[in-house]
């Protein structure tokens, strides 16, 4: 069996960072100790590098099947490992919609063929994401689905969402809710406020998001079921989740790098790469999202990686597609804004980007421990670089972060003991 020794790196454990050697054997972490003899193992000299549990992104769009011109499972997986991710969960808004075991199985097979990161499909809550009839959650789970969501097409009917939470629970699946009251969002393109007025673009009020977060919390609370809130972007949203958690509601929540690094000042540029749903908000929201990540109200960081073709962005802002290609910049942005910015410790960052999503969805990985899957990421935290979409291996070059200087370069991504990315 191939053996791999990561020597001399600083490993990030839940309880602190320690310089140690890590021996990988048979796809598992065989041993963690102060010094381990190479003894025939291939050695990665990790002196000066930090060793993280492989990052897990529980909210990405890989576009396959149906939109391979935007991204496919192979290109998305390559982008994921370049970003330090060993495991990603892909949303079901493909064509056909991933609302049955056959599509789940197809995704699993395509991911296996790509053989880069672990790809865990998320099944649709309702057939065709139409919000009318529950999808076959049991069969999807058996085929490999790890959660259910109608991401992007939120279940507008409250009774349907209630049924979904009750039914999904029977299979140990959690509903991931993209919270957006479409009637309040009203076809808007950017955050409603001074900047939407200034740009003359239709606004999406914070209430569109918060009204549905409140609904999901109330449903989860009264039904005593779990719910997970996708990409929280507003101060009010953070507060709703915080209060619910304090009452003991089984709610978890995520946010994305663009919600703690950008404000809607950028939309007056009319650069469609800034268009994302929910939209980037204002200073007070950015601050609240950071506090939410720090106090654990927001459990995890996801990318909502949403690759698009340039032609879908190079049009009138109103016509441009929503979404940011974010999986290759997430770690650096998060490390720079949150750890260097004094919001999180390194251990907390590893929790939000790896342990927490594993916990929420019951996935393997998420920590560096003997006997655990050898999903590992090595990064040079002192390395500074400038983000350039030309470097992306994702087909989606749509990023508002071009030209942004960040710290923390991913150097190695190791999945089940095999090096899948090396800088």
């Amino acid at each position, binding site marked *: 069996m191939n053996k791999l020794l990561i020597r001399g790196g600083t490993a990030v454990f839940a309880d602190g960072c320690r310089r140690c050697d890590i021996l990988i054997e048979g796809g598992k972490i065989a041993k963690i100790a102060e010094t381990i003899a190479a003894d025939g193992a291939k050695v990665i000299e990790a002196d000066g590098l930090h060793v993280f549990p492989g990052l897990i992104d529980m909210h990405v769009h890989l576009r396959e099947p149906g939109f391979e011109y935007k991204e496919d499972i192979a290109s998305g997986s390559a982008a994921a490992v370049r970003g330090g991710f060993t495991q990603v969960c892909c949303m079901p808004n493909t064509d056909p919609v991933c609302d049955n075991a056959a599509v789940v199985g197809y995704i699993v097979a395509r991911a296996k063929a790509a053989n880069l990161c672990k790809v865990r499909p998320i099944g649709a809550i309702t057939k065709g994401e139409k919000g009318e009839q529950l999808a076959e959650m049991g069969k999807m789970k058996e085929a490999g689905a790890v959660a259910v969501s109608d991401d992007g097409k939120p279940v507008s009917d409250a009774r349907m969402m209630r049924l979904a939470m009750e039914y999904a629970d029977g299979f140990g699946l959690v509903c991931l809710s993209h919270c957006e009251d479409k009637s309040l969002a009203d076809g808007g393109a950017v955050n*409603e*406020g*001074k*900047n*939407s*007025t*200034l*740009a*003359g*673009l*239709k*606004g999406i*009020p914070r209430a569109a998001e918060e009204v549905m977060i409140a609904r999901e919390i109330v449903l989860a609370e009264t039904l005593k079921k779990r719910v997970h809130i996708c990409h929280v972007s507003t101060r009010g949203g953070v507060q709703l989740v915080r209060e619910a958690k304090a009452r003991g509601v089984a709610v978890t929540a995520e946010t994305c790098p663009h919600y703690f690094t950008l404000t809607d000042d950028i939309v007056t540029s*009319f650069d469609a790469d800034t268009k994302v749903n929910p939209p980037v908000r204002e200073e007070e929201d950015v601050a609240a999202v950071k506090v939410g990540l720090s106090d654990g109200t927001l459990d995890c960081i996801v990318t909502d990686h949403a690759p698009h073709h340039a*032609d879908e962005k*190079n*049009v*009138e*802002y*109103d*016509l441009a597609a929503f979404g940011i290609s974010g999986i290759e910049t997430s770690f650096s942005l998060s490390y720079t804004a949150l750890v260097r910015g004094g919001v999180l410790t390194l251990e907390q960052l590893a929790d939000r980007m790896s342990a927490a999503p594993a916990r929420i969805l019951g996935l393997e990985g998420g920590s560096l421990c003997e006997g655990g899957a050898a999903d590992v990421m090595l990064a040079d935290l002192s390395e500074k670089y400038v983000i350039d979409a030309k470097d992306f291996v994702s087909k989606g070059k749509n990023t508002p972060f071009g030209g942004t200087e960040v710290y923390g370069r991913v150097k190695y991504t190791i999945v089940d003991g095999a090096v899948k990315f090396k800088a």
Partner: protein
Amino acid sequence: MLGKDLLGLYETSAEDILAILDTAVGMKRLLTQNLKKLPHLQGRTVTTLFYENSTRTRCSFELAAKYLGAGTVNISASSSSVQKGETLIDTGYTLDAMKNDIIVIRHPMGGAPRLLASHVRASVVNGGDGINEHPTQALLDFYTMREKFGAFKGLKVAILGDIKHSRVAKSNLYGLTKLGAEVTLFAPGTLLPQGIEELGAKVARSREEALAGANVVMGLRIQLERMHGGLFPSLSEYAKYYGVAEEHLRYADKDCIVMHPGPVNRGVEFTSDVIDAPESKICEQVLNGVAVRMALLFLLCKNRQGGNANE
């Protein structure tokens, strides 16, 4: 001085605004002659590219170009390859290839003129983009105000109507605040955009407060086409609480003028007696619109490479 394009007044300096108004004075003089023709834009081409219906703006630009001797081409979205799915940028490349000097664009989406401008060599004039800006309408409004009052400093301008969907209100607000005037807005809560006060406007709580001491009373058209459902209960309720009738003008300065970008919904924004009152400058605005657009086209052409028109 004025750059390649005129996309909005938010980014246009007070000096440039005044330069356009100054140039328009001579243009207006020409318009009152029988022989309305100057050679300044001979050999130039002005294309109007309209993705929304318009009579007065389009006609005004076309006449302005013609009075200055330019060739004109009019393209409507309905009659062009837009129907075949061509993107705005590709349409721009096509127009550029045909050596247009100026493209006047009207578009239902904010920011579209900017997108076009960044991809073409031609000068782009924003003829109204969605709910963003309508700079030439505001310029003709300023011209009309200056004709009456001579200056802008301390001028009180009340704007009533559908502010939320009004690109006219915003261009007026941006320009007037730069020129030293005070802008007060009044509308039902559903027709006021978020954050407008942060952009320099005062928002009145009542019609009386809005009109108090106003030198200019500007009504905005209730844009039924931009509303989808229920922003106010009925036109008659709107007229009753938000419209301006003759009796309300007594709150305004006694020397005030009444303005409206048109087309007017009679009996909604203004009653007919207000529209037809001696204080009303609504028809004068239309004439001034041609003069201001002539000035703008002239100045933009002068700026262009190989420009330096026959002065």
